[in-house]
Each structure stands twice: as structure tokens, then as C-alpha cells.
């Protein structure tokens, strides 16, 4: 930058200050009033700032704009127009909290905003603070700080809005050490109100074989299919029958599609789609000999597991087969879906459970669960726990979100052929003609398998189990028909009207269907972490960096080696330059050594707990 030669414009700021100070001292006659001096000194400071605009002047006059640096260096260091990111103003705490006084003179006994329990605030936090981020520029760090501050504020507000939730969950408590497992369904029906008592019913259907059942996503409609071809759909709350047909073929499984308007029935040979009036709409011949069905509601995908060993994903909104994956494990008849990340869990006869996504030809993960074959798998609604039962009569609960390790195990006298989780974390196991329900300690934590919460004996062996979504009801399909059991405390009491509303009207259902179709998530986005899109793709970033270094021939972001600033008055001699360089190098070296020591300590700490009890032979190992 050049300036036109003009005398008298370059007034160095230092002189001004000295002059001003001398003027002030002269005015006050030496050391005058301390306050006045400070006030005047403050006044002079802004004027000096105005006289010297911008950054400190460079003394060199005829200077080129900048040294020849490569193009990428043009991206500037600080931008003057863009304002600093707005950090939300901290609430100014009052020094003396004045109590609110009303006209009557009474004081608020609970001053301040209502306290919010920490677990509830934790529920609404989405940023994973334990993840270490790679070193980033100050702009990125600022933005991350702003995002974290916002998240804190919004999670407190969301936690406070929980006050507005109208319903409370149900409960069942025995008095004086009474075992809740011994309480009969008949007793519960007597003790509760009429509306709830009406939710308990038994459909005696012995003629058409053992039944499998499915509740719709809102929990209002029930579809069931008997092995000998009986298929029916009804609104079980009002007991209004929507359709009842016999498909004249073996029915292996039945599922509602995205709403109560469509049913998918896995028949002996092929997969059929029916209307809720019983009209057959489609016969999908590519899905043959299907044993199990699962519907992924946010992706509009129907996953089918077949006897031929194929896992097929059918997109029901466009009617195309998205992926047909060969599981290479023989006949598939144990399948469930993970509501948290839409991954399909398949259980195999070698005791493993494999996790599948339509994007990959190989399973995402394989977990060895049992010593014999796996008989049933279930995943809870938050995607944290997986319950499996096997031919070895074990019932195990695995942790899905961290290490895939078993958390608890229990030996059952009879192996459980069916498992299901409820919305509030209750686990039901169907063993022969008995169902056992286990409850957890509160909302967090897996269900404790010590003592069952409720038990019930049915009139025939169990073939299907599902908890009704927003009602305290368990639907059991068995060889004698359908039973609807009361399970207090099973369901989420407060539904969200925009997601699944059991009281929705026809218009509301149509609006919801259109919006759901517009928001349909593409099948390629299914992976173990559903928030993967929100994270920085570190691997691709590093790959790009490598390519850029290759292309340019050098690393534009590498730290330039330290160049000591040339100083006046003999401080720039060769010896002192070398000394300064050495100082900086030594400091960097010290930092590196400190970091590597810390890392080593970390590794040691991690390695320590895995050691077994110390034995006398350890001295020969190290």
C-alpha cells in the first residue's frame, strides 16, 4: 500500500499522548486530583485512536503490496465486515435478588425459574461432548462454541416444556412384599377403570391355526394372520372390523405398511399386499418363501427374510426392490429391526446375530451371542439394548451403542422363542405358552432379569408378541387365537401429534402421509450411527488434504518454520538469532514430549483393568 507524500499527516500517536498528559498536568498544577486526571486521560485515548487509523503504520514508504505468495494465501486472516458470531448473552445475575412483591405484600416462596432435573436436560442434549475434535481454526472453534451454548440453552427450555405433558405412565406395585409376578390378569382387570378393562380381551380362534399379529404405528389398528390363511384387520379400541378374509394359503407373517390402509402378508409362495378392505393389490413374485417381514417406517422399506437365505428390501412408495442381499447363512427366520438406526438384525443357527443395511453387501457387524442357534432377537426403542435368546436356554442383553458386550444373562428353564421390547423398556419373552415380562429400574438402564414383573399363561404356545405402541397393552398371538394383556407402565404416555397420533382424523392422516413421503429418507443413508451425516467426514477430509499436498507439491497449512523478527540495537546479531530459534525449538520439543507422555499414561491406564488377578508368575512375564 502506498500513500501520497504529504508532510504533517503522519503524527506518531506516542507524541500526542505525552503532549496531552503534559497539558493536563500543567492545567492541574502538578499532581492534582487523581480522579480528574484519570477522566482526562481516558478522554485523550479515543482522540489518539482517531488520529492513527487502522493497524500500526509501516515506516517503509515505497513497498509492494505483498511478497509473491502462492494463490491460496489470498484467503485472508481476518475479515472486517463479518461480525463476530453472536454468542448468546449470558443472563446477567442480579447482585441482590430482589424478592417479587405483590400488592398484598406477599412474597414468592419459590423465587427464580423452576429448577429442571439434570437427567431430563441430558435427554435433550445431542452433541456428543466426549468426542475429541482434531485441531481446527479459530473460526471453526468459535462456531462450535456458539453451537454448544445454543444447545445448552435449548435443552433447558425443552426440559422445562415437559411440564406441559398431560399424561402419566401407569404402574403396578405390590403391597407388603407381594410379588407382582403372581398377580393375575383377572385381578388387574377388576382393579382398573372400565375403559382400561375393556382393553383386555381374548379372541378364541382355534380353527385357523396359530396366529401372528401386528399393531399399526399409531397403536390404533391391529392386523393378525393365522397359519391356515385367516387374515383380519380391525380397530381394536372400538372393536370395529375393517376386513376379514381367508387367503387360502399358509400365512407366515403379516405387517402393516406405513398406515392402516395397507397390509403385507407373507404367504406360502410369494409376498402379497392387501388393502385394509381385503382387496389384493400386489403379488410380489421376487420375494418368494418369505418367513419374516419388517417395515422401516421412515424409509418406506419393507424388509423380507426368506428361506432361500436372501434379505430383500422393497421400497413401497415407488414399488422397487432396493437391495437383495445374500446373507450366506442358510434359512433366515429370526429377524428384527432397530428403531434407532433402521438396521436389520438377523439371528443365525451358529449363534451369531448379523446387522444389515441395504447400502452394503456385507453385514455391518456380526455379534456372537449364543452357543447354539439364536431363537429370538429384540431391540429396544432407543437402540441401546438388544435382547437375544438361544437354543442354549440363555436370555442375554447386549449393549448396542458402545461395546457390543453382554450386559446381563439369565438361564431360562425353557428357551424363549419370542422377544419384544416396549416403548418404556419392558422386555417380554414368550416361552411355550407362558409370557414373562421384566421391567427395568426407571427409564434408563436395561431391564433387570432377576424377578419378572408380570407373567401370564395362555391357552396355547406363543407365536407372536408385540407391545401396543401408546397403550399399556401386550398383544399375544398363540395357537388358540389372540390375547390382549394389560401391562401397566409399558407404554409412552405422551405421544406427539405430528408423528403418530392415535386420535387422528382422515384429513390429518392424509396430510401426515404426504409429509412423510416427502421426508422419506433414502436407503443409502442407513448406517450404524444415524447422526453420521451431521459429523465432519474426517476420513474424506484427510484424503482431500493428501491429494491437495500431492497436487500443489507442498502443504499450504503446514506451520512455517519460526523466523525470528529482526530487531534493532544489536539484538539481531547471529548469535542471538540462533539463541531465539533454539528457544522456540526447545519449547516445541518439550510440548511434544509432554503430549507423548500423557498418551502413554492413558494407554497404560486403559491396559491396566484388563489384567486378571496378579499371580506369582508375573515376575517372569515382564
Amino acid at each position, binding site marked *: 500500500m502506498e500513500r501520497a507524500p504529504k508532510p504533517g499527516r503522519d503524527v506518531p500517536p506516542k507524541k500526542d499522548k505525552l503532549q496531552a498528559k503534559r497539558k493536563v498536568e500543567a492545567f492541574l498544577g502538578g499532581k492534582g486530583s487523581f480522579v480528574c486526571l484519570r477522566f482526562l486521560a481516558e478522554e485523550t485515548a479515543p482522540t489518539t485512536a482517531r488520529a492513527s487509523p487502522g493497524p500500526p503504520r509501516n515506516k517503509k514508504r515505497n513497498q509492494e503490496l505483498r511478497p509473491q505468495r502462492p494463490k491460496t494465501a489470498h484467503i485472508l486472516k481476518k475479515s472486517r465486515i463479518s461480525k463476530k458470531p453472536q454468542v448468546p448473552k449470558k443472563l446477567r445475575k442480579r447482585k441482590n435478588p430482589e424478592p417479587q412483591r405483590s400488592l398484598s405484600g406477599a412474597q414468592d416462596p419459590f423465587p427464580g425459574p423452576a429448577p429442571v432435573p439434570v437427567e431430563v436436560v441430558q435427554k435433550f442434549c445431542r452433541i456428543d461432548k466426549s468426542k475429541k475434535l482434531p485441531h481446527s481454526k479459530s473460526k471453526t472453534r468459535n462456531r462450535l462454541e456458539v453451537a454448544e451454548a445454543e444447545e445448552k440453552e435449548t435443552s433447558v427450555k425443552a426440559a422445562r416444556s415437559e411440564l406441559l405433558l398431560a399424561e402419566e405412565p401407569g404402574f403396578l406395585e405390590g403391597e407388603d412384599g407381594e410379588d407382582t409376578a403372581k398377580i393375575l390378569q383377572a385381578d388387574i382387570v377388576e382393579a382398573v377403570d372400565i375403559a382400561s378393562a375393556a382393553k383386555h380381551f381374548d379372541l378364541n380362534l382355534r380353527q385357523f391355526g396359530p396366529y401372528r399379529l401386528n399393531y399399526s404405528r399409531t397403536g390404533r389398528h391391529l392386523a393378525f394372520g393365522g397359519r391356515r390363511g385367516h387374515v383380519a384387520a380391525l380397530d381394536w379400541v372400538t372393536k370395529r372390523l375393517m376386513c376379514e378374509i381367508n387367503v387360502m394359503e399358509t400365512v407366515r407373517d403379516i405387517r402393516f405398511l406405513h398406515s392402516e390402509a395397507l397390509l403385507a402378508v407373507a404367504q406360502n409362495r410369494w409376498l402379497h399386499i392387501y388393502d385394509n378392505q381385503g382387496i389384493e393389490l400386489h403379488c410380489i413374485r421376487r420375494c418368494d418363501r418369505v418367513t419374516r417381514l419388517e417395515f422401516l417406517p421412515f424409509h418406506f422399506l419393507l424388509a423380507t427374510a426368506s428361506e432361500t437365505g436372501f434379505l430383500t428390501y422393497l421400497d413401497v412408495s415407488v414399488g422397487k426392490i432396493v437391495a437383495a442381499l445374500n446373507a450366506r447363512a442358510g434359512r433366515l427366520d429370526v429377524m428384527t429391526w432397530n428403531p434407532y438406526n433402521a438396521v436389520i438384525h438377523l439371528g443365525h443357527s451358529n449363534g451369531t446375530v448379523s446387522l444389515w443395511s441395504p447400502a452394503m453387501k456385507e453385514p455391518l457387524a456380526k455379534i456372537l451371542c449364543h452357543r447354539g442357534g439364536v431363537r429370538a432377537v429384540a431391540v429396544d*426403542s432407543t437402540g441401546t439394548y438388544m435382547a437375544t435368546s438361544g437354543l442354549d436356554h440363555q436370555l442375554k442383553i447386549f449393549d448396542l451403542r458402545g461395546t457390543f458386550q453382554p450386559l446381563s444373562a439369565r438361564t431360562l428353564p425353557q428357551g424363549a422363542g419370542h422377544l419384544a421390547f416396549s416403548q418404556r423398556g419392558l422386555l417380554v419373552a414368550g416361552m411355550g405358552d407362558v409370557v414373562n415380562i421384566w421391567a427395568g429400574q426407571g427409564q434408563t438402564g436395561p431391564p433387570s432379569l432377576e424377578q419378572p414383573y408380570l407373567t401370564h399363561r395362555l391357552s396355547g404356545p406363543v407365536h407372536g408378541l408385540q407391545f401396543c405402541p401408546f*397403550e399399556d397393552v401386550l398383544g399375544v398371538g398363540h395357537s388358540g387365537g389372540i390375547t390382549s394383556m394389560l401391562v401397566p407402565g409399558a407404554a409412552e404416555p405422551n405421544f406427539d401429534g405430528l408423528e403418530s397420533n392415535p386420535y387422528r382424523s382422515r384429513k390429518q392422516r392424509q396430510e401426515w402421509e404426504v409429509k412423510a413421503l416427502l421426508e422419506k429418507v433414502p436407503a443409502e443413508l442407513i448406517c450404524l450411527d444415524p447422526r453420521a451425516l451431521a459429523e465432519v467426514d474426517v476420513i474424506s477430509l484427510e484424503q482431500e488434504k493428501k491429494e491437495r499436498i500431492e497436487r500443489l507439491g507442498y502443504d499450504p497449512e503446514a506451520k512455517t518454520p519460526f523466523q525470528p523478527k529482526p530487531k534493532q540495537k544489536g539484538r539481531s546479531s547471529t548469535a542471538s538469532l540462533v539463541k531465539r530459534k533454539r528457544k522456540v525449538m526447545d519449547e516445541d520439543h518439550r510440548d511434544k514430549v509432554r503430549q507423548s507422555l500423557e498418551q502413554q499414561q492413558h494407554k497404560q491406564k486403559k491396559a491396566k483393568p484388563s489384567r486378571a488377578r496378579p499371580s506369582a508368575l508375573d515376575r517372569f512375564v515382564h
Partner: protein
Amino acid sequence: MKVKMLSRNPDNYVRETKLDLQRVPRNYDPTLHPFEVPREYVRALNATKLERVFAKPFLASLDGHRDGVNCLAKHPKSLATVLSGACDGEQWKMDAPAYGEEEEPLHTILGKTVYTGIDHHWKEAVFATCGQQVDIWDEQRTSPICSMTWGFDSISSVKFNPIETFLLGSCASDRNIVLYDMRQSTPLKKVILDMRTNTICWNPMEAFIFTAANEDYNLYTFDMCALDTPVMVHMDHVSAVLDVDYSPTGKEFVSASFDKSIRIFPVDKSRSREVYHTK
């Protein structure tokens, strides 16, 4: 035993009459709203696609000139007035709804050298021309009030600052941008870039900010107080940038380039938000 079942009263969930609104209870628990990130991604993608589908920026083409249109000028106060000049010397004035009214000049001045650019003061009856040097003219006089120059090369364009109206900026063919003070009749500051600047434009909202359209496919936004580094470098064109103009809000500017495209840049971003081109 103590037992309570979850039982909802339908009266609290279903509306009473058809004239009422539907009741929609809300629960913001993240468990009830899974797949937040992919759903938001899909909604953002759909919104962008629809926005592109409905974007029809081309409004009209004004015919009438018989030769290539070389320059445009807008009226500082009237929204509907635009003047255009063609290579064959014709000038047309568009005053909505009419376009194509030819004007007769009030006054003709013959100069000694070629004039390459002209700009009028925002407040006073003064205008500036540039060619070999920058001349400041009074409307009534036939010779310039003052001439300013710094360096020996020809100057291609000159622009007055709309806020600090005594300031001028000019671009010369020896790759520099010179700022002048009209009150002192002297050049103030100079910045030399790597390649020639075609035009500059002052920000109508920020007093000391101007943007320079450079031959090296970039636009540089400078703060007059500190000309050693640009405030922002705007990189998106793939050929020389020929002209730049600010929006009256001062938040965006539009740039025209030799690569047959027009781009709209926000002032604080280095990438364009919009690009227009014809076939």
C-alpha cells in the same frame, strides 16, 4: 396391590365440533423423533431443488439498439430510469413504461485526450472524467477545475464514493487502484495488485468499503483505511471480471465476467450465492 393403567380421555384429544381446530399435543422427546439428521437433510435437499425449479430470474430483454450496448447507468433517485449507450454512439433512456427515448445533449465539451470513464458526484453539480489523468469538472465550465494524477499510465475508470462524497477511486492500467480526495485535490492512497482492475464500486452502506473487479478472475473487497490486505477475496468466476455493482442494501453485489455469466456475491462470503447465464 396398587395399580394404575394409562387411560386417555378422548375428549382431551378429539375436537368437539367441526368448526374447532384439531388438537395436536406435542412431545419433543428425541426418542419419538428418530432420524432427525437424515430427515432434515432430505427436507433441505427438496427445498433447494424446488427453489431451483421455481427460480426464473430472467424478466425481459430490452431491444432497440442497433449496435452492441457498451455501458449502462442508473438514476440515483428514480427507480425506473436507466440509460444505456451503444457502440455506435446512440444513447437510450428507459423511463418505464417507455424505452428508447433519445436524448439531445445540453452541452458538448471537446477535450485534448481520450476519455475512458466518467462519473458524477452524488450531491454536488460536479463530475469526474478519466483518461490520461483524473479531471474534476464543474457542470457550467468548459475546462476542469482540477486534474490529479499519480503515475504515468492511462486510467480506465473512476467512481465517486456515495457516502464520503469527496472521495474518488480510479483504476489504472498499471495494475493499481488510486484513491483521491476532492477537497484537497490530491491523490490519497494507492494499492498495487497482481493484475489490472477493470472497475471498482463503493459500498452504498459502508463508508470506506469498495470492491474491485480484477482481471485475475477474482473480486477484492478493500477497506480504505487499511489497504494492505483485502477484507475479502471473492473467487468464483472462471474468466476476467469486467464490472461490479452493489445492491442498495449494501449486503450483496453483482459482478459480470468475460465468461458470459453474472454472479451475485454476499459481501461477507467468498463464494457466490447465485449465477445467471444465457444460452
